[in-house]
C-alpha cells in the first residue's frame, strides 16, 4: 500500500507523520462541542493528522464555526446596543448561530470518522498480511 507506483484508491488516506497521534473523531467532536470555539481547532488538527482524501474540506468546515461565532457576537452586540433585541433574545439568536457552526463541524466529523475507520481497517489488513 505504501508503494508509490501501486494503483491508489481515491478514498485511501495518504501516509502522514502525525497519523500515530490522530484521535478518534467522536472524542474530538465531543471535546469541540464542550470547549467552544477553540475546541474546533482540534478537528482541524485531526484532519491534518488523519490526512484523508477530503482533508482540505474538513479543515475549511472545522474553521467555519469561528467567523460564525465571533461574527454573530459582534452583530448581536450591535443589535442589542441599537435596542432592536434584548439581551435575553440575543442569547437565543447566539445559540442558533452556534448551531449553524456545529452543522459545519459535524460534516467535518462525519468525513473524519470515515477516514479514521478506513485507516484502522487498512492497518488491520496490513497486520493480517504481515
Amino acid at each position, binding site marked *: 500500500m505504501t508503494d508509490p507506483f501501486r*494503483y491508489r*484508491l481515491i478514498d485511501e488516506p495518504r501516509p502522514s507523520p502525525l497519523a500515530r497521534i490522530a484521535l478518534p473523531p467522536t472524542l474530538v467532536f465531543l471535546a469541540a462541542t464542550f470547549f467552544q470555539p477553540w475546541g474546533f481547532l482540534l478537528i482541524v488538527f485531526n484532519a491534518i493528522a488523519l490526512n484523508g482524501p477530503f482533508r482540505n474540506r474538513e479543515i475549511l468546515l472545522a474553521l467555519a464555526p469561528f467567523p460564525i461565532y465571533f461574527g454573530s457576537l459582534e452583530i448581536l452586540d450591535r443589535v442589542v446596543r441599537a435596542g432592536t433585541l434584548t439581551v435575553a433574545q440575543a442569547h437565543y439568536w447566539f445559540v442558533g448561530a452556534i*448551531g449553524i457552526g456545529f452543522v459545519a463541524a459535524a460534516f467535518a466529523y462525519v468525513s473524519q470518522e470515515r477516514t479514521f475507520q478506513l485507516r484502522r481497517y487498512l492497518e488491520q489488513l496490513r497486520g493480517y498480511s504481515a
Partner: protein
Amino acid sequence: MNFEYRALTRAEALMRAGNFASAVEPLRDVLTADPENARAHDCLAQCLVMQNRLAGAEHEARAAIALDPLASRYRLTLASALHLQQHRRRALAEVDAAIELDPDNAAAHLTRAQLLRLKGDRSGSTASLARALELAPGSAEVLAESGYAALERGDMAGVEAAGRAVLSINPSNADGLILMGRLSLARHDTDEALRLALGALSQAPTDVDALSLLAATKMKKSWLGGLWWRWNQLLIRLGESRAIFLVVGIWVIYRWSVLASRDAGLPEATGTVLSVVYLAFVVYTISANVIVTRMVRKEIERVRLNPRF
C-alpha cells in the same frame, strides 16, 4: 497480459465467494499493470460498494464507464454507489441509461424496481419488477425483491410466499433466509429469527440486510436497545445531511429550553434537569452503539467458528 488475466480471474472468484475485501489487492495489481482495464475498475467499484467505501466506488465506476461507455453493467455499479450515498435521482438516471443501452437486462430492471421502491414509487417499482420477472422468471434475486417489496407494504403473506419460493430454488439463499427471518421477527419468534439471520450470515458474511436482521433480533430482546435501534434506523433513512441537521436541531432545542426555563423564572434545578436529560441521551446514544456493535460481533464470531462456515 497473462498475469493480469489471472489476477482478474482470481479477484472475480473471490467476489463470487463473497470475499470482497480480499479481491481488492488482486484488482489493484491488475490496475497497476493496466490502468485502462475497464472490467477491473468495475470489479473494484463493486468491492468498494460492498465495503461501504462509496466515494472510492463512485470514482472507480466512473473510470470504468469512461473507458467503456456502452457497457450497461458499469452503469448499474455506479447506480449502487450513488444510491448508497443517497443520490437517488442520479442513481435512477444511471439505471435508465443502462436500460437504454440494454433494454432486456433483467438486473437493470431489478435495480430500477429496488430504487423506485426505496423512493416510495410503488407503481413504478411494481412495473419494473414485473418486467424483471418477465426477463428472468426463475431468478431468486427477482423473487427476493418481490419479497422485500411485500415486506415494505406490510404484506406478510407476500413475504412468506416470496421467501419460500426463493428457498425452493436454493435452500441456503441468504435473501430467502432473511425474508423468513423478517417474517419470524414480525411474529415475535426471535429465536427462529436469530437462527435464520446467522444462517444468512454464514452464506453472505457481508450482507447488510443479514447484519441488519441480526441486530434487529438482538435489539427486539431489550427495550432500551430497541429504542436505540429505531433511532438509528431513522438516522439512516434520513441520510447523512438530514441526520446532521436533526441532531444539531436537538442540541439547539435543548439550549433554547434551558434559556426559556431561566427566562420564565423557573427554579435553577429545571435547567440542571434538562442538561442531565440531554447528557443521558448523548451517553446512551454512544454507549448503545458500542454495545450493539459488540453484540453483533459476538454473534458473527459464532458464525465464523461454525465448522460449516
